[in-house]
C-alpha cells in the first residue's frame, strides 16, 4: 500500500459504511457458520447427531489416518506444480489477446469457454482424450512413444488433473490480467521500444513490474484454489480418489468423510480446519514474500 501516508480526508465512520455490506455478508454467511465447524472439530458429531466434546481426538485420529497424509501430500504437490503455470500462462495469453487485431474479440471469448463449460462434459472429453486409445496416446504413438495409462496410473492421473486445472484457469485468470494490463502506461512500452528492447526484455522490464501486484494476487488466489482442489481430481480419478485412493486430495477427504447421512461431521470439520489453517498460511506467505521483496 504505497499511498498510506496521507492526511485523512474523511470522517471516521465513512470507511465502516463502505465496508458494511461486504463485511456483514461474509461475517454472517461464511465466518459465523465456520465457527460451527470450528466447534464441531472437537466433537464426534455426525450428520444427524450433535455429538459430544472429544477434545483433540479427531486430530489424533487424523495423524494416524493414512489417507490424510496421502491427501496432504497431493494437495501440497498441487500447489507447487500448478501455481507457476496459473500465474504465468494466463498472463502470456492476456498479452496475446490484448492487441486489437481483427478477430481478437472472438478469440478472447473463445478462450473463456473452458471456464464456463460444464464439468461433466469437460470430464467426458478429457476422459476420451487421455484414454489408453484416446487422442493423446494416438499422437504419442505416431511419435513413437507410449501408450501411457494417463487414467490408470496414480501419478499420471494426478498430473492430468493438474493439467485440467491449468487449462480451466487460463481464461479465468486471463481476464484478471487483462483488466490489470489496461493500467500499464503505453508510454513505458514505447520508451522500451525506443531503447531497442526485445519482446522478452519488454516483458520483464515493463509488463511484469506493471502487473506485479496482480501477479501476487493471482498467485495467492491460485495457491489457495490449488490447495483446495476438488472437482478436477474427482472428475478424472473418480470419487474414490484414483487407484487405491492414492490421488485423494484434502477437500475430497472432507467431502468423503463429512457428507451424506452417515457423515462424520466432527472428523470432517477437523479436516476443514486443517485446510483452512494451511490455506491461510499459504496466503500470508505469498503476501509476506511480496512485501519483503518490495522493501529490498
Amino acid at each position, binding site marked *: 500500500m504505497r499511498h498510506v501516508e496521507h492526511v485523512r480526508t474523511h470522517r471516521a465512520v465513512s470507511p465502516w459504511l463502505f465496508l458494511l455490506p461486504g463485511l456483514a455478508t461474509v461475517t454472517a454467511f461464511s465466518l459465523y457458520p465456520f465457527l460451527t465447524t470450528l466447534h464441531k472439530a472437537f466433537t464426534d458429531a455426525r450428520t444427524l447427531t450433535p455429538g459430544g466434546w472429544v477434545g483433540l481426538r479427531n486430530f489424533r485420529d487424523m495423524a494416524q489416518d493414512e489417507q490424510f497424509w496421502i491427501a496432504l501430500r497431493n494437495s501440497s504437490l498441487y500447489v507447487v506444480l500448478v501455481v507457476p503455470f496459473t500465474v504465468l500462462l494466463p498472463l502470456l495469453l492476456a498479452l496475446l489477446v*490484448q492487441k486489437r487485431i481483427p478477430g481478437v474479440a472472438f478469440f478472447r471469448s473463445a478462450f473463456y469457454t473452458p471456464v*464456463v463449460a460444464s464439468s461433466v462434459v469437460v470430464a467426458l472429453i478429457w476422459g*476420451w482424450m487421455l484414454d489408453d486409445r484416446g487422442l493423446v496416446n494416438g499422437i504419442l504413438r505416431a511419435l513413437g512413444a507410449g501408450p501411457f495409462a494417463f487414467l490408470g496410473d496414480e501419478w499420471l492421473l494426478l498430473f492430468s488433473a493438474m493439467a485440467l486445472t491449468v487449462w480451466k484457469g487460463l481464461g479465468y485468470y486471463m481476464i484478471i490480467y487483462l483488466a490489470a494490463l489496461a493500467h500499464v502506461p503505453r508510454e513505458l512500452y514505447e520508451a522500451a521500444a525506443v531503447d531497442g528492447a526485445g519482446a522478452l526484455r519488454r516483458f520483464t522490464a515493463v509488463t511484469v513490474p506493471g502487473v506485479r501486484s496482480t501477479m501476487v494476487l493471482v498467485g495467492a488466489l491460485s495457491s489457495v484454489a490449488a490447495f483446495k482442489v476438488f472437482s478436477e481430481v474427482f472428475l478424472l480419478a473418480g470419487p474414490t480418489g484414483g487407484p487405491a485412493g492414492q490421488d485423494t486430495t484434502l477437500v475430497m477427504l472432507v467431502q468423503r468423510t463429512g457428507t451424506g447421512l452417515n457423515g462424520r461431521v466432527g472428523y470432517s470439520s477437523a479436516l476443514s480446519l486443517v485446510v483452512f489453517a494451511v490455506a491461510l498460511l499459504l496466503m500470508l506467505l505469498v503476501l509476506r514474500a511480496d512485501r519483503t521483496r518490495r522493501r529490498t
Partner: protein
Amino acid sequence: MSRTTPWEKAVRYVLLLAVLALTVGPFLWQLSTSFKSTTEDVYTSPPRFLPARPTAHNYAAVADIIPVWDYALNSLKVAVASVLTNLAGASAAGYALARLRFRGRRAAGLAFVAAVLVPLESIVVAQFTMMRDLELNNTLVAVVLPGAVGALNVLLMRNAFANLPYEIEEAAVIDGANVWQRFVRIALPSVRGTLAVVAVFSFMGAWDDFLWPLIVLSDPDRFTLTVGLNHLHGTFQQDPRLVAAGTVVAVAPLVVMFACLQRYFFRGVGEGAVKG
C-alpha cells in the same frame, strides 16, 4: 506506437489458433452432440464430431421435460441480483480497504481473506439451518444472500483501487469533494475493467452454482436452471443428447455475456480504448 510486423502478426494468429483448439474443442463437441438425432450412435470411439443428420429436436425435448424458460428466468433473477450486489458491495469495501486510512483496516482485510479460505463444503448445512431460522429457505433471496458480496471480488477490487495513482484523487480532495463523491466520480470510472471482471465472475458464479440452490430450494417452481437441468440425467434412461442440449442452453448466456463485456477489460485510466 509500436508497429506490428506481418511476421509477428502471423505468429500471433498461429498461437491464437493453437490455444483456440485447446479451449473450445469440448464446447463444440457439446454443441454437436446436442444436434445429433436419436438413431445416431453417440458412443462411438473415437467420438464423431459432426452430427450425421442434425436436428433441433433435442432442444424441444428439453423444453418439454422441464420448464426451461421459467428456470432460466429464476437463474437470471439470481444472477442479475448477484451482479448488482457484488458490484456495489465489493467496490465499496475494496475502496475502503485500498484508499481510506482507519483503525481496524488490517482486521477488516483479514476478515475477507479468511472468508475466501473457508471450505464451503463444511458450512453448507449451517448456512441452510440459518436460512430456515430466517424463514428464507425455499426462496430465491436465500440463493443470492451467501454470495451477495463475494470476498474474492472484494480482494480484486481492493487490488484494482490500490493500483491507481494517488494523484488522480488529489485534485478532487483539494476541490473539497467528499469521500463518496471521490469514490463515485473518480475511483469507480478508473477501474471499469475490474468492475467488468467482477460482473462476469459473480454472474457466472450465481448462474453455475448447483449445490447451494439445490439444498436451499425445495419447490420445483423455484429451481434455478442448473438444478432443473440436472433432471435431464434420467434415473432409468440416459440421453446424452438431452444433457448436451441442456448444457448448451446453460452455457450460451455466459458466453454471450462475456462477449459483450470483454471490451471493457481494456479500458484503463484515462483511455477510452487501447489501440494496438
